[in-house]
């Protein structure tokens, strides 16, 4: 399992025992291999308990997802949208009165067609870019860095919003059933967020095991509702939904026109959110990755389209009217199909769960997308690092932190968060489709004209949707996202600029590094004369160059006492006493180091600090504060080298 010989060498010799037990020869020794590379990390046992024991890199393939599990992980966001997409169309049409609700079916069919076009485009993306990245990669490769980063920023923002919205909607479902819990909704949302974060930190396979059941339960619930609903319509001749307590709105506030139809179309396009998820996560699939991902996408879109069109058709057939803040269309259809018994409850519970778990898709994709962007140098390299459970832990934690901030700031209110939502997704769709048009134009392989037409149509449709959504939601809060996207793109570009500058400065310009003739001036700041000081002085002497101890005193007597102690310890180096009339330790010391540096402009000033390492982790706070301040102050000064010499306490 460990083919890397260097790694096995590191693992060896972590503990050699020499104790003698009865029957044991004194020369018998046992070497314990370090199986857990995180064992040396402080509080490793707590970390292991929370996120599980580390998984070896060689097990990465075992952590990959089968199509069944991947469908659950990557489709929960997309599938959950069928729980409210039909309602969104009906709400928009309701402005012109209940009589125009029958227009929902043609609109749903248009959305279904757009869904197929977008999915066809992403299917091609999956094969063209098997390393994942979706819209970001397509737009970057075909339209340039800025459009790519715009798509990336838009998606990252939307993933954060998806987490906040889906968890808040889950909490809303609970507080609707138990109104007394309303005052704890932020705490509950943060609790859910912590649970999903931990489940994802435990690894892809484990999180897919946890979240698989609710996703498939929802699929079964919706298809059962559709099957029974269609049976009751055709066989039993039922054409009315089960009655609700609400009064039907009859007031007409707008005329049916192209703008209203466009708004209804744009509102229903929430059914498309989450479609891009699979294309971002291709490397999470078992080989052949692209084929498996493409098949999973086809299955997901087939189910999504069937469920969405089925619900909209059934809503038309039963003449249901959405009851805002009271009962969703799916709930009305389920109640018509099953009555108010356990089957209806199953539909409702599975709907609530899928709404919460839509957040999980973001947890699968945000870390992957941020890792791909970081690999290109537009985000800190930390995002690329894979954690102890073979997931991009930094991305997961960053997503959790930003989502938590949104939940707290917006008071876990879906109503406050929704206006910010969906702008990013449609912007990324548009850029991705436009990128694919350019892709086909560049390649001009067989069937390129057909592909360009499909992607061009998709790009135009999603661009229209983006504009309609921005127009409809701009003043309600979408302006935040509209401003945030360019701000994040600017940040990406600045990060890249820094890395480029860093590379040009640090790269070896010649084949061989040049040896630079310099001298060392070694300064050892001390607080007292003890074993740690003596040990540090012994080490400092091995560095070479001139060696001086430095002590900052606040009154003359203190300085004289220290000098006597220094001399009586027979340390073979002078001690520089630095007066501190204002009792500060760091500032006078830095001034002294600066003066030495000015007198010796070509010398390396090496500051060697004794550091006490207590046996208990928590005792760290009791030591070394001054040493840390000195280190921090010297960090930004050129030609200063800081060395720590640890002194390990035994108790």
């Amino acid at each position, binding site marked *: *399992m460990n083919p890397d010989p260097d790694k*096995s060498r590191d693992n060896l010799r972590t503990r050699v025992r020499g*104790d003698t037990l009865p*029957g044991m020869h004194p020369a018998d*020794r*046992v*070497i*314990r291999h370090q199986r857990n590379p995180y064992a040396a990390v402080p509080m490793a046992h707590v970390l292991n308990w929370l996120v599980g024991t580390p998984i070896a890199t060689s097990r990465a393939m075992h952590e990959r997802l089968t199509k069944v599990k991947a469908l659950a992980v990557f489709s929960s966001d997309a599938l959950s949208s069928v729980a409210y997409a039909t309602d969104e169309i009906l709400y928009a049409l309701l402005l012109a009165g209940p009589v125009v609700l029958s227009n929902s079916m043609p609109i749903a069919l248009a959305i279904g067609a757009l869904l197929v076009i977008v999915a066809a485009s992403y299917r091609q993306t999956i094969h063209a870019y098997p390393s994942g990245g979706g819209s970001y990669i397509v737009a970057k490769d075909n339209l340039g860095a800025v459009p790519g980063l715009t798509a990336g920023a838009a998606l990252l923002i939307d993933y954060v919003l998806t987490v906040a919205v889906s968890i808040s909607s889950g909490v809303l479902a609970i507080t609707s059933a138990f109104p007394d819990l309303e005052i704890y909704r932020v705490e509950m949302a943060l609790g859910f967020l912590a649970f999903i974060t931990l489940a994802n930190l435990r690894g892809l396979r484990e999180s897919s095991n946890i979240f698989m059941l609710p996703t498939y339960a929802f699929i079964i619930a919706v298809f059962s509702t559709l099957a029974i609903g269609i049976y009751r319509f055709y066989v039993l001749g039922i054409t009315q939904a089960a009655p609700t307590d609400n009064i039907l709105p009859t007031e007409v506030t707008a005329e049916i026109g192209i703008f209203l139809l466009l708004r209804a179309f744009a509102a229903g396009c929430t059914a498309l959110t989450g479609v891009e998820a699979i294309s971002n996560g291709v490397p999470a699939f078992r080989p052949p990755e692209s084929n498996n991902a493409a098949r999973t996408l086809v299955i997901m879109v087939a189910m999504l389209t069937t469920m969405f069109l089925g619900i909209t058709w059934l809503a038309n057939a039963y003449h249901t009217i959405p009851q805002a803040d009271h009962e969703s269309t799916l709930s009305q259809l389920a109640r018509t199909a099953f009555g108010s018994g356990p089957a209806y409850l199953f539909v409702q519970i599975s709907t609530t769960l899928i709404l919460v778990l839509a957040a999980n898709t973001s947890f699968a994709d945000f870390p992957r997308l941020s890792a791909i962007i970081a690999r290109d140098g537009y985000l800190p390299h930390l995002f690329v690092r894979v954690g102890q459970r073979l997931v991009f832990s930094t991305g997961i934690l960053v997503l959790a932190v930003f989502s938590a901030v949104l939940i707290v700031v917006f008071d876990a209110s879906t109503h406050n968060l929704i206006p910010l939502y969906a702008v990013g997704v449609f912007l990324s769709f548009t850029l991705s489709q436009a990128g694919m048009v350019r892709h086909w134009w560049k390649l001009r392989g067989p069937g390129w004209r057909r592909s360009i037409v499909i992607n061009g149509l998709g790009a135009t449709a999603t661009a229209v949707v983006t504009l309609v959504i921005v127009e409809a939601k701009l003043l309600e809060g979408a302006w935040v996202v509209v401003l945030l996207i360019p701000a994040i793109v600017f940040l990406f570009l600045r990060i890249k600029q820094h890395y480029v500058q860093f590379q040009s400065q640090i790269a070896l310009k010649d084949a061989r590094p040049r040896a630079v003739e310099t001298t060392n001036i070694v300064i050892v700041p001390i607080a007292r004369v003890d074993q740690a000081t003596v040990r540090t002085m012994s080490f400092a002497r091995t560095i070479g160059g001139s060696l001086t101890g430095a002590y900052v005193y606040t009154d003359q007597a203190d300085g004289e006492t220290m000098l006597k102690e220094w001399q009586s310890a027979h340390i073979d180096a002078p001690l520089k006493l630095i007066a501190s009339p204002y009792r500060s330790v760091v500032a006078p010391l830095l001034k002294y180091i600066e003066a030495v540096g000015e007198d010796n402009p070509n010398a390396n000033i090496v500051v060697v600090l004794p550091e006490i390492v207590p046996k208990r982790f928590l005792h760290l706070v009791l030591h070394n504060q001054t040493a840390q301040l000195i280190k921090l102050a010297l960090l930004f000064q050129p030609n200063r080298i800081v060395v720590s010499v640890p002194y390990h306490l035994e108790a």
Partner: protein
Amino acid sequence: MKSISHVLVPVNGKPGDEDALQVAFAFAKKGKAMVTAVHVVEVRRALPLEAELPSETNAGEQLLEHVEEMAQHYGCQIKAELLQARSAGVAIVDEAFHLKADLIIMALPYRSRFGEFHLGETSNYILNHATCRVWLVRDSYDTATEPAA
């Protein structure tokens, strides 16, 4: 009988290991005890103790990962250790002592030498020197496949 809170199970990849592990998991689940599985890579005298033995180490890692998966399947918490020593018996006794294990449960293949049942060097050493209790899970006679040691 003193309560048992920590069970050590030496494994070497032989078929009997699974029986020993199953006994340990069942016992640990019932008594809420902790299980540690140990595999020892034995180093020949011709090599230094610290010698790198990648194929043996990798095989040991694979074995312990399989044991961890088994534990997960049984819903049992487990720690797995890979040791390197001259003699497996010495390492197991030493590990049990240092981990303060109360019980060693180990598989014992059925084998004979000169027509007599033969305990084997490692089992013999552990039975002689372990400071804790030792349970042996012996293979059934007809399924024994081990050649004489």
